[in-house]
């Protein structure tokens, strides 16, 4: 589109884009500004480009690993379902079973056992190991005690030595 056919406003806008200080575009000034613009366009043929950038954003995806546990509970539940249904087709065992317990264990869960709720959580892995060892020791002692009792029950009651 030649400059001559542009409106006064369009011309004014172009002049501003090329950084040409100008006054009102009237009959007596129009020709001059057209000439100025032509000169400017020859020097810099590339027009002011409109910003058209596409931004690519790298999104960090959080991956959670989900593990399914096929415990023997399933079989029992299966039979329950069959009994409950009664006349329902027993062939359709593969239909969505209603698990009593959610078999899905999301590995995000930390090993915060409720065995020692009283102990304050320090957050240090060393203390967790120590706690685990303590628990194992207590369990071993209990098992040994029970074993002794069972063994001694055949003869004398345990405690009399």
């Amino acid at each position: 589109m030649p400059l001559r056919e542009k409106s006064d406003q369009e011309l004014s806008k172009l002049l501003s884009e090329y950084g040409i200080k100008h006054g009102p575009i009237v009959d007596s000034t129009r020709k001059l500004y057209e000439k100025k613009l032509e000169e400017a366009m020859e020097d810099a043929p590339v027009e002011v480009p409109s910003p058209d950038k596409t931004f690519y954003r790298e999104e960090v995806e959080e991956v959670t690993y989900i593990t399914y546990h096929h415990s023997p509970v399933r079989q029992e539940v299966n039979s329950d379902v069959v009994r409950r249904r009664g006349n329902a087709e027993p062939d359709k065992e593969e239909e969505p079973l209603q698990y009593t317990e959610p078999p899905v264990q999301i590995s995000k869960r930390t090993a915060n056992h409720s065995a020692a709720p009283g102990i304050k959580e320090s957050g240090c892995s060393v203390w967790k190991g120590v706690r685990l060892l303590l628990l194992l020791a207590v369990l071993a002692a209990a098992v040994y005690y029970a074993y002794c009792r069972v063994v001694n029950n055949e003869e004398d009651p345990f405690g009399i030595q």
Partner: protein
Amino acid sequence: MSTTSQKHRDFVGEPMGDKSVTSLSGIGEILGKKLEQQGFDKAYVVLGQFLLLKKDSEMFSEWLKDASGANSRQAGSCSQCLREWCDSFL
């Protein structure tokens, strides 16, 4: 250092009133006639054009060269004349 002519000093020393376009510094008879043909028959009309161009000396000089065929010296002289007049009276 600019040496101004008598014509210049005469023009910038007082309000222009209805002075002819040829009273402007740098504008002689030939250039004056050319401007009159385009409707610029009085000094104040040329002043009007100078003001429309926002008192930009370079722009005005360029316009004057195109409109009347003035050379750089003449255009520059007229431009300076008008600028100084504006400084005093506008």
